[in-house]
């Protein structure tokens, strides 16, 4: 069944609301209106106001209430309207949700999903474009998930809701309505024409900790997640090199086996992410590659990332990673 990423996420929530009476959804504008990106559209109408309702503009309060609910035994799925707005909830996520199981020696735990649209390419400026995955991946006790297509988005979100621990579920908003590949001067392709836009209407899961090999290749390995999977793919095709493209799907848990096997085979690696460079998740990936593949590497690994600055509004397509900068990175690792 053809679905956009928005529709696939909506379907995941619909399936889980139907399946488990303990699942409930709340967040800003998610109720009657269905959310600013329409991910919860129709869910209140179908499942009742008790299951899907609006919340005050207080991200720290939303997450705190959800922690209390999860500790009670419910499975709250909360929406933070933009990942940029998640920081008021950071203390609750880091100091509370992530640690409750540990500090209570397993007496209490937090089956909570925090959904948040992240990433750039929408002329959203500093407050609607950031990619904060690294500040969650760093925290012991949290899982961090970033899908790159409708099929994975639904399967991973269902896995997140079934998970017994808190999951940060970052949705690449630039992919909501089509597989955007960074070539902003072209018409956006449709998920309906994309193989991963064919989404089963019912229940299924995509497991955590299993990366996807999007494209097999022999020359080099490209590691990416979220929107950058599509941008990297476009770059690979344009570069003329036979790159193996790996979509990480989940940063925590991380599929280090798939990464290691690929880089040992190719001997070269380019790491791509939208987020700022310094202490980005690419630094962790670089360390994983170094630890697991050092004696197999022909060239130093390249990180192609966002610049170390706040997201600039007027320079969207110079800041946002387009295939051009990734091609440059590929050429650098292939030049030796």
């Amino acid at each position, binding site marked *: 069944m053809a679905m956009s990423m928005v529709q696939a996420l909506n379907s995941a929530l619909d399936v889980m609301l139907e399946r488990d009476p303990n699942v409930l959804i709340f967040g800003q504008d998610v109720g009657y209106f269905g959310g600013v990106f329409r991910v919860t559209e129709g869910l209140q109408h179908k499942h009742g106001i008790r299951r899907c309702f609006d919340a005050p503009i207080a991200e*720290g309060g939303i997450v705190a*209430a959800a922690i209390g609910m999860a*500790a009670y035994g419910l499975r709250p799925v909360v929406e933070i309207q933009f990942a940029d707005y998640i920081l008021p909830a950071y203390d609750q996520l880091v*100091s509370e949700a992530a640690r409750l199981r*540990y*500090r*209570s*020696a397993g007496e209490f735990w937090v089956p909570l999903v925090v959904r948040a649209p992240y990433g750039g390419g929408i002329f959203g400026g500093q407050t609607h474009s950031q990619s904060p995955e690294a500040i969650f991946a760093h925290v012991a006790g949290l899982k961090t998930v970033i899908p790159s297509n409708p099929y994975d988005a639904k399967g991973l979100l269902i896995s997140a809701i079934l998970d017994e621990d808190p999951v940060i579920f970052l949705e690449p908003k630039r992919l909501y309505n089509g597989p955007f590949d960074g070539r902003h001067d072209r018409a956006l392709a449709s998920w309906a024409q994309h193989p991963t836009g064919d989404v089963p209407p019912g229940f299924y899961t995509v497991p955590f900790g299993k990366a996807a090999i999007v494209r097999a290749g022999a020359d080099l390995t490209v590691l990416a997640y979220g929107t950058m999977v599509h941008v990297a793919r476009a770059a690979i095709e344009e570069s003329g090199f036979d790159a193996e493209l790996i979509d990480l799907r989940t940063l925590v*848990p991380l599929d280090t086996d798939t990464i290691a096997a690929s880089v040992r085979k190719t001997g070269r690696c380019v790491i791509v992410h939208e987020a700022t460079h310094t202490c980005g998740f690419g630094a962790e990936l670089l360390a994983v590659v170094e630890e697991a593949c050092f004696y197999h590497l022909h060239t130093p690994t390249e990180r192609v990332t966002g610049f170390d600055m706040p997201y600039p509004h007027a320079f969207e397509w110079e800041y946002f990673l387009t295939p051009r900068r990734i091609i440059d990175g590929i050429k650098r690792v292939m030049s030796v």
Partner: protein
Amino acid sequence: MRLSLHIPEPTSRPGDPHDFARLEIPPAGAIPQPRNDVSPADIRDLAFSLVRVLDEADQAVGPWDPKLKPEVLRRGLRAMLLTRAFDERMFMAQRQRKTSFYVKCTGEEAIACAQALVLDRADMCFTTYRQQGILITRGYPLIEMINQIYNNARDPLKGHQLPILYSARNYGFFSLSGNLGTQYSQAVGWAMASAYNGGDLIASAWTGEGATATGDFHHALTFAAVYRAPVILNIVNNQWAISSFDGIAGGEAATFAARGVGYGLPALRVDGNDFLAVYSASRWAAERARSNLGATVIEFVTYRGEGHSTSDDPSKYRPIDSARHWPLGDPIERLKQHLIAIDAWSKAQHEALTAEVTQEVRVASNAADAIGTLGTSRPPLTAMFEDVFGEPDARLARQRHALGL
């Protein structure tokens, strides 16, 4: 006119005479008790008054008298005495280096103990580190508390958590964070879940007056008001947040109960050293919550009798012995005198009970000592790697293996 910045300061510092003139104390029995389905708008004045039941002659008077049977009062007295004896023993244990840290609740025992007697044992309490009286009143084994305080081999929290930050799910006692304010809003979420589920349990949220300044406090009141969550929002105003007097949290300008008024929540301000007033106000709020009428804010006015913790020296910032001059007295002494005044208690019985609870604490303490104290006994090192996630984590397996475990 040139501007000047106001920095609040308490009325007395070390060496100054004791000055509690800012506390207005109405006579016991003077405050009316509304029906608990009253509209919050009709009882706003209760946020600025002080509900008191025990009068100068140790009699229970007025509409807030809960009219409890003497055996309930004696249970409360015993719980308070046991809590105080436990605190004394654990304070000494810290001085003897059996643990790194302890916090007493001396002078505040009535608040936790009375509310614990009101609540159902499964009502979930999201406490601060100064409501050990709830666990003790609910009969949680003292030795389990001490094992946790010592982080010894039988620590129920496997050495994962700082001393006194207990967790006791089966006793309706939520895992203590140690961060201030964060759990106040979680309590509201727990209460929302109970309502969502159509259950009959309520939550009890706790903060000191100092942490009412946190955003979490205001999130809690917003969510509690918006969703009519069945929760009691307790504020223990013990006048001090470590060395900061209540004025630093905003206590000069308004009462802490008054925080509730702006949210449209019913708000009570109660003599926290008056066991009967605490019981009565807690029961009023619990019945209101259980009737699906939502949350109540209660400010309990009390006084932190001792230092903030074993790491604190209050003589550095407030007059020595200030607790003895606190005009609302001592909660144990007041309930004892009331029981004697109604011929339900005697000095001899009181001495016997004090000896009994002291012995009970000694027995538990000796048993915990036999297991071991901080540094002499601890859970197995493998426990360090447990309970990060519900499922095994490959990173932790590697890290554990690297330690040779």
